[in-house]
């Protein structure tokens, strides 16, 4: 009797928790997972027949490959430059700033994160035009939209995404371990390479992941700051769907990019997870 009553109670709880969970499961199923199935279908079916042609085009045609290389170049450059710019700043905030200064600096460096990408890219475009109208006559050198302005825009927009994880990683490094390394005679540089950076690695990898993966599919900044040559994968997907109405190739390209992103993310997360467990 008691067992039966308990069994019934568990059953009732299960049923009501299903009711609570159902809206989220159903909404994501209908408007996130089902659309992905449509995307896969749209990439595989052309004029009523099943074909892998779009995938072959996307991974072999020089036109697509050139755009992919250019995007990868931009993503790698953006990641490296934001990493080099962020690390010393994050290091100062984590190790040297007083608690009050730390709060102010973090707020000041993170606040642009809340301003939308589009607005930040546009403000940079205003800066470029202001420079061309005001300072270019003096310097004799005009800024044209192209690789330089594009990279400047990417760095400007992605810096907070690199800085915050690195700061989080550095702030978890125990200070006494660093002090011990110094006491035992490690020089500043040696301490940095053998103690500090390895300990802050989870944060550094998180920043590299965020910036490289997000910047790879970026299309707002290339469109506003890249000039005519600033054609990236994200921009190409935008044009394939909204300009050329070629959803067949558009879907294939989107899926190839998404699969690459997910595989890279999964590998890094797995490695990172192991490192965190071992360390």
């Amino acid at each position, binding site marked *: 009797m008691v067992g039966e009553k308990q069994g019934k109670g568990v059953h009732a709880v299960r049923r009501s928790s299903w009711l609570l969970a159902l809206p989220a499961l159903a909404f994501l199923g209908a408007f996130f997972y089902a659309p992905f199935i449509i995307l896969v279908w749209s990439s595989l079916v052309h004029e009523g027949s099943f074909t892998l042609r779009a995938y072959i085009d996307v991974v072999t045609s020089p036109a697509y490959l050139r755009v992919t290389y250019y995007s990868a170049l931009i993503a790698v450059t953006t990641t490296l430059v934001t990493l080099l710019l962020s690390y010393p700043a994050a290091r100062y905030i984590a190790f040297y700033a007083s608690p009050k200064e730390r709060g102010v600096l973090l707020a000041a460096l993170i606040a642009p994160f809340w301003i939308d990408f589009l607005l930040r890219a546009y403000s940079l475009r205003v800066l470029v035009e202001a420079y061309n109208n005001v300072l270019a006559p003096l310097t004799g050198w005009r800024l044209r939209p192209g690789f330089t302005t594009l990279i400047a825009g990417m760095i*400007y927009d992605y810096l907070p995404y690199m800085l915050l994880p690195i700061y989080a990683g550095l702030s978890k490094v125990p200070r006494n371990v660093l002090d011990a390394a110094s006491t035992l005679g490690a020089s500043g540089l040696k301490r940095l390479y053998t103690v500090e950076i390895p300990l802050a690695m989870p944060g550094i990898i998180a920043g590299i992941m965020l910036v490289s993966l997000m910047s790879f599919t970026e299309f707002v900044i290339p469109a506003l700051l890249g000039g005519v040559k600033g054609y990236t994968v994200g921009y190409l997907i935008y044009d394939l769907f909204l300009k050329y109405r070629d959803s067949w190739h558009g879907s294939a390209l989107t899926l190839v990019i998404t699969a690459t992103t997910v595989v890279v993310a999964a590998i890094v997360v797995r490695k990172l997870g192991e490192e965190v467990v071992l360390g």
Partner: protein
Amino acid sequence: MRKAMRIYVYVLAAVLYTPILVLALYSLSGSKYTGIWSGPTLKWYSVLLEDSEVWAALRNSLTVALASSLVSTLIGFLFAYAAVRRGFRLPFLSVYMYTPVVIPEIAEAVSLMLFFYYLAGSGVFGWLTVFIGHTAFNISYAYVTVRSQLEMLPPSIEDAAKSLGAGQYRLLRDIVLPLSAPGIIAAVMLTFITSFQDFVKTVFTTGPGFETLPLLVWSRARKGAASDLNALATLMVLWSLTAALLFSRKALGEDEKQGARVP
């Protein structure tokens, strides 16, 4: 070394704010072309006030963001409650909930566009499709935010209410909801801001005649810098910074309170 690093941080912060300050400065210039100074004047702000396209876009942005933030927070809260308190488990549940955050936004956006197109034709695109698109990614964010709040609540309070005879509905309404209010408010704010500023999802799920503020900025910015757009962008930047300030104040304040309550 330390001093050099300190100078560097302040220079970096100054560089980050330069474009925004230049933008704000030129929104006060009387000339139509950026970089040619005359003024200061507020005339571009009054041009904005009379721009019916801007008002329509603002209304669209506000209604979509409000509806999406409320609906996604409600759905996310119910799910978080089931997962944290009712022991709701399924295989691959966290993968199911977190994938929308990990997938590139553009992939989510184009798949949703195709989905709506094949399901209901090109006439369907507008407020509803944009709302659904925003809500689909907001649910995951709301869930993460509310979940962390629910996990901080000691279960003993709910156990006490239960043993004093509170039913399931009463427990949710009188105990769980008020206690997780900070997390719920944070989730509403976060999803509202995400939705209000969203561009990628919106550009693929909108239809002719439905424009939000980011879409308006996008279509005008592609034609180059212009003074009335500078004024609009300045106002949007100010609004973002205000929201950032409110949000971080709130988060910090709650941290302190939590610290005081749970020693």
